[in-house]
């Protein structure tokens, strides 16, 4: 029995159960963080009634979500309507299987990976699973049999297909640089140091793909400024307009789970995963149980940083207009990432893929892109004149305002 639990298979099973449990908790807590950060950005308190500093707010929210009346409208396609939230939640959670959370652990004299699965194609597995997430959105919108929902899912389809291309190219830049698809190897390859101080994280080699990957991850998880599929001013709620209670909650949790996967992926690809300089337990040589905990903590910290960044952006930036969204992807991100990809391929051919020339190439490509974008005239879209001024009066506009003053 002990042999089973100390083997890689046993550790994987135990760890997968732990990951699922922890993630369910963390994704629910994300809602609390989201509301607290919204409060911070908008200069108000946020939830502060349930428990100290409102930390039990999510329990109240969860109880509310479970016990609300679960309405299935009469006009929906019932099979697909029930399948859509299930697809969303399954796809969001199985993506975690390939993330290397804690390096290696020495257990009974042999090393086991703190990772659910370590396939040869770990990175492609995550990409494949993420590409299936679109079915949840599309089917949710289609089966609702509602024009606004359908618009939402059409937008989701076009947006996710468009932003998958620069996302994949950014990931390919890393794969080309390090020559492996195994996420554990990608993390291990970044554990060295330049000049003895700077960790060899990919972000110092390729800052531009790092930023573009962050942007496309926001678009893939439908977060502001890319939340057009659920733009509430135009489409009620987009693809989940007709959903209530726990089924709505699944869409909600799926979004946060997607954010966590994306953050973990960015951390592993560009920020060295569980590696952190100056902490002796976050080095590849450390394999004790405490080191595993520290490594999980380091990767968790990086994930929390990215989640904070995404939430901060959500409450700071306005939403893109649809033509701007498409222009950013097809005329901005895709040419730049293609140029970066070709640059990396050329540098790999000359064996310079991890030298200063990578950074120089990044700078040159961004400068060239800005030069080209600046030299061509841009179409002036949108409003070009000011709206008529808001009539001033004792009351706010509309009450006694326009007609009375004129």
């Amino acid at each position, binding site marked *: 029995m002990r042999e089973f639990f100390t083997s890689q298979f046993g550790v994987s099973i135990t760890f997968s159960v732990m990951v699922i449990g922890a993630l369910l908790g963390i994704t629910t807590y994300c809602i609390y963080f989201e509301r607290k950060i919204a409060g911070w950005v908008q200069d108000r308190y946020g939830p502060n009634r349930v428990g100290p500093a409102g930390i039990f707010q999510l329990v109240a929210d969860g109880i509310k979500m479970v016990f609300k009346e679960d309405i299935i409208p009469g006009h929906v396609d019932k099979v697909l309507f029930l399948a859509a939230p299930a697809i969303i939640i399954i796809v969001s959670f199985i993506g975690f299987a390939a993330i290397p959370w804690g390096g290696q652990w020495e257990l009974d004299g042999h090393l086991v990976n703190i990772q659910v699965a370590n396939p040869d*194609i770990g990175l492609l597995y995550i990409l494949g699973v993420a590409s299936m997430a679109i079915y949840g959105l599309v089917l949710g919108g289609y089966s609702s*049999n509602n024009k606004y929902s*359908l618009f939402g899912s059409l937008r989701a389809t076009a947006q996710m297909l468009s932003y998958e291309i620069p996302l994949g190219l950014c990931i390919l830049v890393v794969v080309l640089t390090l020559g492996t698809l195994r996420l554990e190897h990608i993390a291990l390859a970044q554990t060295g140091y330049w000049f003895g101080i700077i960790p060899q994280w990919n972000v110092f080699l390729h800052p531009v793909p790092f930023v573009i990957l962050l942007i496309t991850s926001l678009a893939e998880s439908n977060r502001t400024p890319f939340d057009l599929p659920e733009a509430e001013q135009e489409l009620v709620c987009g693809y989940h307009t007709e959903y209530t209670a726990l089924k709505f909650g699944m869409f909600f949790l799926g979004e946060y789970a997607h954010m966590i996967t994306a953050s973990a992926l960015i951390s592993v690809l560009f920020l060295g995963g569980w590696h952190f300089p100056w902490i002796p337990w976050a080095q590849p040589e450390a394999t004790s149980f405490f080191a595993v905990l520290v490594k999980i903590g380091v990767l968790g910290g990086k994930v929390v940083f990215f989640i904070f960044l995404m939430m901060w952006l959500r409450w700071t930036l306005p939403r893109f207009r649809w033509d701007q969204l498409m222009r950013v992807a097809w005329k901005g991100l895709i040419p730049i990432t293609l140029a970066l990809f070709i640059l990396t391929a050329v540098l790999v051919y000359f064996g310079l893929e991890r030298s200063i020339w990578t950074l120089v190439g990044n700078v040159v490509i961004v400068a060239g892109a800005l030069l080209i*974008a600046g030299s061509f005239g841009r179409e002036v879209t949108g409003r*070009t004149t000011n709206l008529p001024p808001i009539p001033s009066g004792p009351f706010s506009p509309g009450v006694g305002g326009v007609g009375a003053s004129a």
Partner: protein
Amino acid sequence: MTASTAYILYLAFAIGAAAVYLMLPRPERSKAIAGALLGVAALAVLITLLVARVTEPGSTRAFFCIFAAVALFAAARVVTHNRPIFSALYFVLVVLAVAALLVLQEAEFLAVALVIVYAGAIVVTYLFVIMLAQQTGSPVYDRQAREPLLAVLIGFLLMAAVAGQAGALPDTVEQGSVLATQTGPDSPASSIAEGNTAAVGRAVMTKYVVVLEIAGVLLLIAMIGAIALSKKKVPSEQVRTARKPLGQVGKEVAPY
């Protein structure tokens, strides 16, 4: 493969053809159940035939049976379902089941590439078109197959021909020898050791590089064609929108 096995295989195909013919959409629904029963019979014959040929351990065999049955069932539903959106979704199921079969053959890269390309991109665009084309109700061409007999006959004849050819291969294929024949003469053993992805990449970039280039050129032509087709010709008066350098766009609207 003995002669009798081949005949059992052809018999399974004949039953399957009859099943698909009966299950194809038609105004009256009574024959579909008979078709489904026949389909189950054909599936049972095929699975027993295939299980006898699989030499892997028990769990692999069980997984193979499950995923093969799912793939065949879903493939039958792709052509027999009378709502296009369900047909597209069953096609996704076929792709996933085939990907699982590829994983059982230790071809993980092909499996994931299949999922990303077909399930993740191509079928999504199908769904896009279907969603735009029809919201409610199904037109007559979805409720009734046009030439069911000819279509089933030709489809299954083609499949029987291909399967008969495949049946001419040696009975038990040794582990990894398929991969070895694909990666070319240079050290097949080492290419298996370096991993599936690397082996596929090496094969594509050395032995099949011409095919790769042709596929790339074909895709480029298709892309240019699509752009040319989708480009709408507008009168020259209408295209004169204001153009400005990037830094000046939006400057004329003063912030409130």
